[in-house]
């Protein structure tokens, strides 16, 4: 019994260390002053200010665009590749896997500067900073998208589904996209949330490549950091809320998937 008590203490201590900064940021955002031990002046004014700030809204829109577009591009490409692999050339899988793991090794700063120095003088569509950021994110999320989609394809046994559909008169391409893809929809959603929340949290790439050309919420936050503590803690709370919301969706989908599998077994 003594043992489980000590393990509880360890868990509580670690949780405390992890949660403390979060709670404080939240408290900081709803008080006007905190110069002594206890804060003073409960208010929601800062939330109103930020949510009505045009720059913030623009940065949120930018963030949403640069996180969703790479996901759509990347998922489409990976799905097409997986279609060829599953239906025609299963032996190509190991090469694809190798290719998709490369981005793991090239992280953050190195990726950003490599792309910047390679494409900065390229012809128009590629030297546009917006295009550059979007395409860079495609590379960043590629390994996660590949892993996620591959795992969900493996669990549903895609080949048999395609054979069944073919027996009913569908061609292979139609079978893959009309039968297999809807079946892995929950897997796709999880991957979507994961990749979007990764892009949401990124500062390195957008700061180096996007720089002064356009703003995302992270950049907005960085600028606010030197102006007002309250305002930036509000931004953090809003951003963290979005991240939490997405991971809640992810978890509920995962649990649903697990339950479905249990029911079918």
């Amino acid at each position, binding site marked *: 019994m003594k043992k489980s008590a*000590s393990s509880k203490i360890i868990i509580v201590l670690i949780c405390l260390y992890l949660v403390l900064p979060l709670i404080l940021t939240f408290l900081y955002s709803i008080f006007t002053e905190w110069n*002594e031990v206890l804060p003073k002046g409960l208010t929601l004014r800062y939330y109103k200010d930020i949510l009505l700030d045009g720059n913030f809204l623009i940065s949120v829109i930018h963030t949403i665009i640069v996180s969703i577009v790479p996901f759509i591009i990347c998922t489409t490409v990976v799905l097409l590749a997986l279609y060829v692999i599953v239906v025609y050339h299963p032996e190509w899988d190991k090469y694809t896997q190798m290719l998709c793991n490369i981005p793991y*090794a090239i992280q953050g*700063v*190195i990726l950003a500067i490599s792309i910047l120095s390679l494409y900065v003088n390229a012809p128009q569509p590629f030297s546009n900073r917006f295009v550059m950021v979007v395409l860079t994110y495609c590379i960043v999320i590629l390994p996660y998208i590949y892993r996620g989609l591959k795992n969900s394809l493996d669990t549903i046994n895609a080949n048999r589904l395609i054979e069944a559909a073919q027996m009913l008169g569908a061609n292979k391409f139609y079978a893959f996209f009309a039968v297999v893809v809807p079946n892995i929809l929950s897997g796709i959603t999880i991957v979507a949330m994961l990749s979007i929340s990764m892009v949401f949290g990124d500062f390195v790439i957008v700061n180096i490549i996007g720089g002064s050309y356009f703003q995302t919420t992270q950049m907005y936050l960085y600028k606010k950091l030197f102006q007002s503590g309250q305002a930036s*803690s509000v931004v953090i709370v809003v951003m*963290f809320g979005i991240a939490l919301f997405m991971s809640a969706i992810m978890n509920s989908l995962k649990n649903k998937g697990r339950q479905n599998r249990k029911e079918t077994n």
Partner: protein
Amino acid sequence: MIIIRSFAPEEGIGFTFEHYISIFTKRLYQQAVLNSVLIAIVSSLVGIIVAFLGAKAANEASSKWKDFFVNILNMTSNFAGIPLAFAFIILLGNVGVLVMFGKSMGISALANFDIYSAKGLLLTYIYFQIPLATLLLMPTFNGLRKEWKEAVMLLGGNNFVYWTKIAIPTIMPSMLATLSVLFSNAIAAYATAYALLSNNYSLLPIRISEQFVGDVVQRKEFGSALAVVLMLTMVIATSINNYFIKKSIGGGSR
């Protein structure tokens, strides 16, 4: 591309080791390499120790506690980069909450804590290492079977013998693998340090990006050389690690 460029002189075409020589001879850049490696090593080690204790505790605790713990870890693993730096500034900055608390209570360790230093940076790095490391280590602890412990007890061993002879050698490979993930995570981390210390503390990722988007002069070739050094440290760390992993697997099977 980066590798090729790192050997190019700053003007015209050619081949030179000049940038590498200056990295390892100029104090500023020596310091950057050293700081980066040190911070990465220390934060990974602390992270893995805490994660070991945490994962061990989670493994022993009831499933309700474990779920709670996993939820907290998942939640806080999203909390990194600039928001993290900011939260620590609120907590331990010049007028941070804990600093104020320390001042009014007379705890000088808290009152004089300087977050804008290597120590502060280390604290934030450890913060984002813990959730990652614990989440990676937890599955390994599930692999430890209760029967093994019972067997040790039956053969007359005690708890200490069980941990040093059975449990730790079993989980060693995944501990080491986690360690290398943590190391590359820390050495490439940029946003937290950038937000916390701007350019006041010499770290490799910050020095690299300076060469490309710098306020002063852009020196892409030199930056490339720095980037290659950063990649090299990762490769070296990973291969040292792989060596130990192989060794510990080999030793464990005999």
